[in-house]
């Protein structure tokens, strides 16, 4: 059955297009997660200083997370236009905001108070203490959040095919919009997105281990 579903020759003939779509998919994913990170990290720092902000900020991030991406794309079309890069990237970024914010907060909260005091006692100024003590210790939790956000967004980017962007999602839509449905194209888009998600997850896992070697040592 699989032999009928997947026409390998078609995949061979379209390798160039698949490559281009994969790169586009990667760009949209990375751009949206980075944008989410650029907003989430300062927000987490702010929340740690003004703790009463945690409720409202998490609440708003939660609402943005709950609005379906399809609806969010659709609502932005009349405002930003169908072709604007922001129309897909903005909802994708806000979608990753909740998990990134939560993990950054967890990471910063996990830094032992004694370490902050030790840094203060050693004469570290607040900025240096933040960059050299708090950030490195919080980083594993942040990267864990980036992993979840990235894998989720790879899946969501396929939906942007409805905006005519696509990445690998364009193959999925193309497969069903033909007069006779073409499963090979749908499978290429779906499996491609899954493989891309796994590849990015493994790359980030490697990064997570590389930046926090002490964690591995503690586990061993």
């Amino acid at each position, binding site marked *: 059955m699989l032999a009928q*579903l997947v026409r390998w020759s078609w995949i061979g003939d379209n390798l160039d297009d698949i490559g281009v779509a994969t790169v586009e998919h990667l760009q949209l994913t990375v751009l949206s997660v980075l944008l989410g990170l650029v907003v989430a990290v300062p927000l987490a720092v702010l929340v740690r200083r003004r703790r009463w902000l945690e409720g409202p900020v998490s609440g708003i991030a*939660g*609402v943005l997370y*709950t*609005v*379906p*991406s*399809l*609806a*969010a794309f*659709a*609502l932005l*079309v*009349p405002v930003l236009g*169908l072709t604007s890069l922001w129309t897909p990237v903005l909802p994708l970024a806000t979608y990753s905001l909740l998990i990134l914010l939560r993990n950054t907060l967890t990471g910063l909260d996990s830094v032992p108070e004694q370490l902050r005091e030790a840094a203060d006692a050693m004469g570290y100024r607040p900025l240096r203490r933040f960059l050299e003590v708090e950030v490195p210790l919080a980083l594993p939790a942040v990267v864990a959040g980036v992993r*979840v956000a990235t*894998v*989720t967004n*790879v*899946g*969501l980017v*396929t*939906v942007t*095919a*409805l*905006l005519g962007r696509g990445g690998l*999602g364009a193959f*999925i*839509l193309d*497969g*069903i919009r033909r007069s006779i*449905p073409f*499963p090979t194209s*749908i*499978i290429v*888009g*779906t499996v491609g*997105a*899954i493989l891309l*998600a*796994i590849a990015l*997850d493994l790359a980030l896992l490697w990064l997570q281990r590389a930046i926090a070697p002490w964690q591995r040592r503690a586990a061993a």
Partner: protein
Amino acid sequence: MSFWDRFVEWATTAETWTAPGDGLLALLAEHLRLAGVALLLSALIALPPAVWLAHRRRGRVVATVVANAGRAIPSLGILVLVAVLAIEQGFSTRFWPLIVALVVLGVPPIFTNAYTAITAVDPMVLEAARAQGRTERQVLREVELPLGLPLLIDGLRLAAVQIVATTALGAVVGPTGGLGRPIVRGFASLRGGGDVELVGASILVALLSLLVDRGTTLLTRVVVPPGVRRLQAG
């Protein structure tokens, strides 16, 4: 006429809401029917194995794989794939293929959260429960399930929100998908005035998701025993 003028005219026309089969109310009913059946089936499929495996403290690898797979599978892809396969096999209904895809997406969060909820129960508490002479069945029913309930319901909430969102995507594969229909149609006819129903239906889908989210959170208040709630709060 500006977008807002057209939007107000569209939203205040009775036909928009009550047209048989294609009015927003009929589409909302279809949306709820699809999402409701999918959520129920997902829970029926995911909960028994998750609870049993977690109670026996087995299947950690299975739980991890299910959790990761749930995130990595693109909803649009699985939806279209199941639909096309169903059409090739000669199924004409627009209901069940969509349900199958929705269940595939609904099972992982329910399974993962239920599993985590029960395995996270303090081993000392379990030891105490067994020392008091509780049977394994009683340990599960009287200790693990009540203590795990908040996290378990959170899994249902995640699945419900995910399913409501993905139901709308169903409109990509044909005349189904409830409120997703005007959205997908709107994308295809932006210049022909489709932007109005695109925005209108999107607002409804967004509101529906938020309502479902709130609703399941409220469920926690009703279902979770007060003692467990106090534990969590304190």
